[in-house]
C-alpha cells in the first residue's frame, strides 16, 4: 500500500482507537494517543520520500496525494510541534473530562494538517481544510466556555474563508476541468483577467482567515485563548501556518502569473503589516496571558503575511523562516501559559506574580522564546526579522518597514509584560506553594528553546530546506546571490560574519557575568522582594508593592485613538443588522392559514402578470 495512505490510516484508526481506549482506561487512551502521533511521524519521516504520489479518482475527480519539498518543510512544523504538544498535553490535560474527545480531535487536527500538506489537488485540500476547521472548532469549545460566542464566531469566520475558497475551487474546476494543482498552475495564464484577479483574492480570503489576517482575524483571540493551552500551541503554531502555506502557494504560483500582480501584493502586504501593528497594540492592552499571546500570534502572523505577500526571494525566505520560528516560540509560550495555568489555576497577569524562583525551567523556556519573539540576537527570531527588513527595503517597501519595525518594537512591551507579570515582580504569599510543572511539560518547552538557539546560530540548517522548497515553487536557487545588502549569510548562514558576532555577544556577556559580577553574586545573599529600598522603611507583609494594574497605561493612552474601537464592533453591528433582517423575514410566515392562502393567490397573480417576462 502507498506510504501516504498508510499515514492517513494510522491517523484515522489511531483517532478512533484512542477515543475508544480512553473510554476504557486513562493510561490506554494516553498511550494510544502518543503512539498514534509518533507512529505517524516516524512513518512520515522514515518511509515517505519527496516525490511519492498516490493518485485516485473520487466522484469523477482525479485526485492526487504527494509530497513536495515545500510541504515537507511545513510538515516539520506540524509533526514537530504536534508530537511535542502531544507529549505536553499528557500531563497538561491530566484529570480533565472528556479526554477521549480531546485526543480524538487533536489527532484529527494533525491528520488534517498533514492532509492539507500532502494534497496535490484542490478538492482533497478543501476536504482536509474543513476537517481541520471542525476538529479545531471542537477543541475551541472543549472547555464549554462561551461556546455560542467564541465558538460560533470561529466557525463562522472559518466558514466564510472556506466558502470563499470553495467558490474559487469550483470556478477553477469549471475552467480547467481538473482539480489538480499543477493543472491549475499550468492553465492559469489562459484565464480571463477577471478570473485571474478574483480567484487569488477568493483563495487568499480563505487562507487569510486561518492566518488571522486583518480584518478577518477577529476569531483568533477568542479561539486561541479558549482552547486548552496544549492545543493552543498547536493552533497558533501550526494550524495558522496552514493559511501561510496556502498563501505561499498562491503568491508563488498564481499571482506571479498575473501581469497586474503588484496591487494584490501591495494590499496583502499592507494588511499584513497593519495586522502586525494593530495586533501588537491589542496584545499590549491584554491582562490575560492567553489573550495576550493570542493577539501576539495575530501580530506575528502579520509579519509572515507581509513577507509572503511581498514575495521576493528574500522576503519569502524570511517569511517561511519566521513561520517555522513562530511555531517554535509561540508553541513554547502557549505551553508556558498552560504550565502556569496548571500550577496556579489562573493565567491573569495581574494575579500571578514572582514565579521565577518557583518555576525556573519554565522561566528559561519563556525567556528564550520571548527573546526569539522580540527578534533580539542571538536567537533565531532576529535572523528572520533581519531578513524581512532587508527584503522590504530591497523591494522598496519603506513605509512598511517602519510599520513592521514599530510593531516589533512595541512588541517588546507585551513581551516584557508577559515575563514580568508571571515571573518577576513581587513574590507574593499566595503563590508560595507553586511548584515547577511536571517534567513532561517542561521538556518539550526546553527542547524548543534549544532549537531556537540553534536556529539563531545556524540558520542555514533551516534556510537550506526552505531554499529547496522555494526552488520547487519556481524561485531561483538562492545560493548567496542576493545578499548584496548584507553579508549576514554567505552560504545559508554558515557565514563568515554572523557567527563571530553572535559569539562575541555571548563572550562579552559571559565576560561581564563572570569577571565583574560572579564574585559579587557569590558574596551577596538573596533577599526577598519585600526587602526593597522604600525611603528607609522595610515594607510589611501586608503592603501591596505589586505594580500590575494598568501596566502600560501611559503607552495605551498615547495610542488611544487607534484603539478606540475594535474591528469586532463593526462585525457585531453587521451581525445585529442581519439578525434583525432575519427576524423581519421570519415574520413572512405568520402562522395563519388565511395569509398563506392569500400568498398563493398573490403568487398566482404575480405569475400571470409576469408570464410574458418569465416564460418565452
Amino acid at each position, binding site marked *: 500500500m502507498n506510504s501516504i495512505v498508510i499515514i492517513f490510516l494510522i491517523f484515522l484508526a489511531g483517532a478512533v482507537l484512542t477515543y475508544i481506549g480512553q473510554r476504557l482506561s486513562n493510561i490506554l487512551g494516553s498511550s494510544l494517543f502518543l503512539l498514534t502521533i509518533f507512529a505517524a511521524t516516524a512513518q512520515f519521516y522514515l518511509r515517505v520520500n519527496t516525490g511519492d504520489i498516490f493518485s485516485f479518482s*473520487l466522484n469523477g475527480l482525479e485526485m492526487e496525494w504527494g509530497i513536495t519539498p515545500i510541504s515537507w518543510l511545513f510538515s516539520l512544523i506540524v509533526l514537530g510541534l504536534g508530537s511535542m504538544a502531544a507529549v505536553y498535553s499528557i500531563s497538561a490535560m491530566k484529570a480533565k473530562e472528556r479526554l477521549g474527545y480531546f485526543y480524538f480531535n487533536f489527532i484529527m487536527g494533525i491528520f488534517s494538517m498533514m492532509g492539507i500538506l500532502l494534497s496535490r489537488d484542490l478538492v482533497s485540500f478543501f476536504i482536509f481544510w474543513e476537517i481541520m476547521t471542525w476538529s479545531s472548532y471542537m477543541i475551541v469549545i472543549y472547555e464549554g466556555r462561551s461556546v455560542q460566542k467564541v465558538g460560533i464566531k470561529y466557525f463562522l469566520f472559518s466558514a466564510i474563508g472556506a466558502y470563499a475558497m470553495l467558490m474559487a475551487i469550483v*470556478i477553477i474546476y469549471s475552467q480547467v476541468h481538473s482539480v489538480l494543482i499543477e493543472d491549475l498552475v499550468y492553465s492559469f495564464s489562459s484565464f480571463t483577467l477577471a478570473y485571474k484577479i478574483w480567484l487569488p483574492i477568493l483563495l487568499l480570503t480563505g487562507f487569510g482567515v486561518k492566518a488571522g489576517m486583518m480584518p478577518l482575524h477577529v476569531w483568533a483571540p477568542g479561539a486561541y485563548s479558549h482552547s486548552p493551552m496544549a492545543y493552543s500551541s498547536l493552533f497558533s503554531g501550526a494550524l495558522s501556518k496552514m493559511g501561510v502555506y496556502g498563501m505561499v502557494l498562491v503568491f508563488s504560483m498564481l499571482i506571479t502569473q498575473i501581469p497586474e500582480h503588484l496591487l494584490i501584493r501591495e494590499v496583502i502586504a499592507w494588511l499584513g503589516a497593519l495586522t502586525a501593528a494593530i495586533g501588537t497594540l491589542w496584545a499590549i492592552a491584554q491582562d490575560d496571558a492567553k489573550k495576550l499571546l493570542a493577539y501576539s500570534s495575530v501580530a506575528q502572523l502579520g509579519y509572515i503575511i507581509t513577507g509572503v505577500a511581498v514575495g521576493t526571494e528574500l522576503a519569502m525566505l524570511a517569511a517561511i523562516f519566521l513561520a517555522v520560528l513562530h511555531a517554535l516560540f509561540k508553541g513554547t509560550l502557549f505551553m508556558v501559559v498552560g504550565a502556569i495555568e496548571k500550577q496556579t489555576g489562573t493565567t491573569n497577569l495581574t494575579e500571578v506574580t514572582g514565579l521565577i524562583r518557583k518555576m525556573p525551567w519554565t522561566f528559561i523556556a519563556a525567556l528564550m522564546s520571548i527573546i526569539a519573539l522580540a527578534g533580539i540576537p542571538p536567537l533565531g527570531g532576529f535572523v528572520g526579522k533581519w531578513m524581512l527588513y532587508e527584503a522590504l527595503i530591497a523591494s522598496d517597501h519603506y513605509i512598511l518597514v517602519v510599520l513592521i519595525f514599530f510593531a516589533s518594537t512595541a512588541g517588546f512591551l507585551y513581551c516584557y509584560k508577559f515575563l514580568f507579570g508571571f515571573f518577576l515582580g513581587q513574590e507574593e504569599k499566595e503563590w508560595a506553594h507553586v511548584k515547577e510543572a511536571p517534567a513532561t511539560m517542561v521538556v518539550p518547552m526546553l527542547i524548543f528553546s534549544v532549537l531556537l538557539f540553534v536556529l539563531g546560530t545556524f540558520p542555514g540548517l533551516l534556510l537550506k530546506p526552505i531554499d529547496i522548497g522555494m526552488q520547487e515553487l519556481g524561485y531561483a536557487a538562492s545560493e548567496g546571490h542576493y545578499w548584496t545588502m548584507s553579508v549576514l549569510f554567505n552560504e545559508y548562514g554558515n557565514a563568515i560574519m554572523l557567527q563571530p558576532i553572535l559569539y562575541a555577544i555571548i563572550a562579552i556577556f559571559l565576560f561581564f557575568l563572570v569577571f565583574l559580577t560572579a564574585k559579587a553574586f557569590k558574596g551577596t545573599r538573596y533577599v526577598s522582594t519585600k526587602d526593597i529600598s522604600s525611603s528607609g522603611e522595610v515594607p510589611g507583609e501586608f503592603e501591596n508593592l505589586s505594580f500590575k494594574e494598568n501596566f502600560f497605561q501611559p503607552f495605551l493612552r498615547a495610542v488611544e485613538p487607534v484603539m478606540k474601537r475594535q474591528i469586532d464592533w463593526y462585525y457585531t453591528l453587521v451581525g445585529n443588522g442581519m439578525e434583525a433582517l432575519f427576524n423581519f423575514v421570519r415574520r413572512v*410566515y405568520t402562522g395563519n392559514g388565511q395569509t398563506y392562502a392569500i400568498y398563493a393567490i398573490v403568487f398566482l397573480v404575480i405569475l400571470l402578470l409576469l408570464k410574458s417576462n418569465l416564460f418565452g
Partner: protein
Amino acid sequence: MVGSPVLFVAIPLLTAFLIPLFAYIWKELVRIIPGIVILYLLVLSVSLYGQVLREGTIVEQIAGWAPPWGINLVFSPFTGLLSTLMLFMAFIIWMYSYRFKNIDFEPSKKYFILLLMLVTGSIGIVLTGDIFNQFVFIEIMSISGYGLTAFYVGRDSAEASFKYLIMGSISSMFLLLAIILIYSQLGTLNMADIASKAHLMKPEFKILALIFFILGLGIEAEIFPLNGWAPDVYSQAPGPIGAAFSGIVVKAGIYALIRVIYTLFDVEGSLQFLVIIGMITLIIAEMAAIRQDKIKRMLAYSSIGQMGLVLVAFGIGTHEGVFAALFLMVSHALIKPLLFLSGSYLVFNSTEKSIKELNGLGKFMPLTSFLFALGAIAIVGLPPLSGFWAKWSVLTAAANSGMLLVIGLVLAISIVEIVYYFRVVNRIYFFKKEESVVPKIPTINAKFAMVILAVIIVAIGFYPDLITSYLHEASETLLDKGNYIQNILSVAQQVTQ
C-alpha cells in the same frame, strides 16, 4: 421480470385496507405487516432497478389499455431511483416508529394505515405516466398527510392539519384546472403523449397550464410563497412523520414539478424561473430558520431551504445540474430524516419542543445527540460527509453554467445554515441541562434505524462513487425526453399491432 411496477401501488394500498382485518387476528400484526410489506417492496424495487439499469425502462400498462389511453406506470432509472429511495426511507421510518411513543393499538392502526397510504401516494406520483392518475396519487398522499398531521389529538396539530388542508385544496384546484386545460387542448392525459404534442398547444394556454401546475405542485414542493403550511405540519406531526415529509413527500412534490417542467412542456424560461424561485425559497427559508426557537420548526425551514436548493440545481438544466439535484435529494433524504428522527427523541418528553430544552442532553443521550450532531454537520455540507459532495455537485454544476451569483448566494446562505445548526449542537453538548427535561433513551429499533442512516451518510461522504453512477444514469434518463416519449408510445404501438 421479478415483479411488476403495479405492485408498488397495489400492495401497500391493499395492505392498508387489510390492516384492520389483521388486527382481529393478532394486534401486533398491525405493526409488523407494514414493515414486511415495505421491506418486500424495497427488495422488489432494488431488483427491478437493477433490471432497469441493464435492460432499459419498464413501462407497465394497467388493465391492458395501451397508452395514450390507458394508465401506465413507468419504472425508469430516474423514477426507479426515487421509488427505491422512498421505500428505503419508508422502511427506516417504519423501523423507527415501531414502538414510538408506545402508540396504543387503536392509534397505531391508523398510524400505519396512513403511513402506508402516504408511501403509496408518493410512489404513485413518481411512477405514474398519466397526469390525472398523478393527481389522484397526490390526493392520496395529501389526505393521508392531513390525517397524520392531526395524529396527536390537540389544538395545535388540528390547526396545522387544517392549514395543510386549505393549502392542499388550493393545490388540487389548480392541478385540476391545469389538467382540464391540457385535456381540452390536446385530448390526452398521458404524459408522454402530452409531451410529444405539446407544441400543438396554443402558447398562452401552455403557459397558463404551466402556471397552474407551478401553483398546484409548488404547494407540495414547498416553494416560497406557497410553503407556509410546511413548518406547522413538520413540527406538529409525530417525529417520524416529519421525517417522512422531508424524506418522501417533498421529494414526490419536487418530482412532479420537475416532470412537468422538464418533460411535459418545453417552455422557455421555465428553468430560469426554477433557479429564481428556488433561490428565493432557499434564502427566505434559511433566514427564517435562524430565528426559530422550536427545534422541529427550525428543521422544517431548513428542509424547505434545501428543497429550494434542489430546484436551483434542477433549474441549471444541464446534465450536471440534474445530477447535482438528484444527489442533493438523496443526500437530503438521508440527512434530514436523521435529524428529525434523532431530534424528536431529544425533545421526546418536552411539551414546548423548544431548542432550549435540548441544553446539555449530550451527556444523557450520547448516541442520539451524536447522531443529531452528525446530521447537522452533514447537512451544512462539511466534509467528509455526504452533504459536502451534494453541495459540491451543485456548485460545480452552477459554475459550469457560469452562474457565479448562484454560487455566491448558496455559499453565503450555507454560512447562515452553519450558524443555526451549530448553535443547537453547542447547546446539546455544552450547556447545562434544564431541570424539567426528562431524557428518553430511544428504543433499540429506533437507534438501529438512525445508525443505518448515519452509516450511509458517512459511507457516501467517504466514497461518493457508491451512488454517483446511479445518479448519472437517472439524470440521463430525465433529460432524455425523446427516449421517454418513445419508450411509452412504443408500448402503445406494440399493443396496437
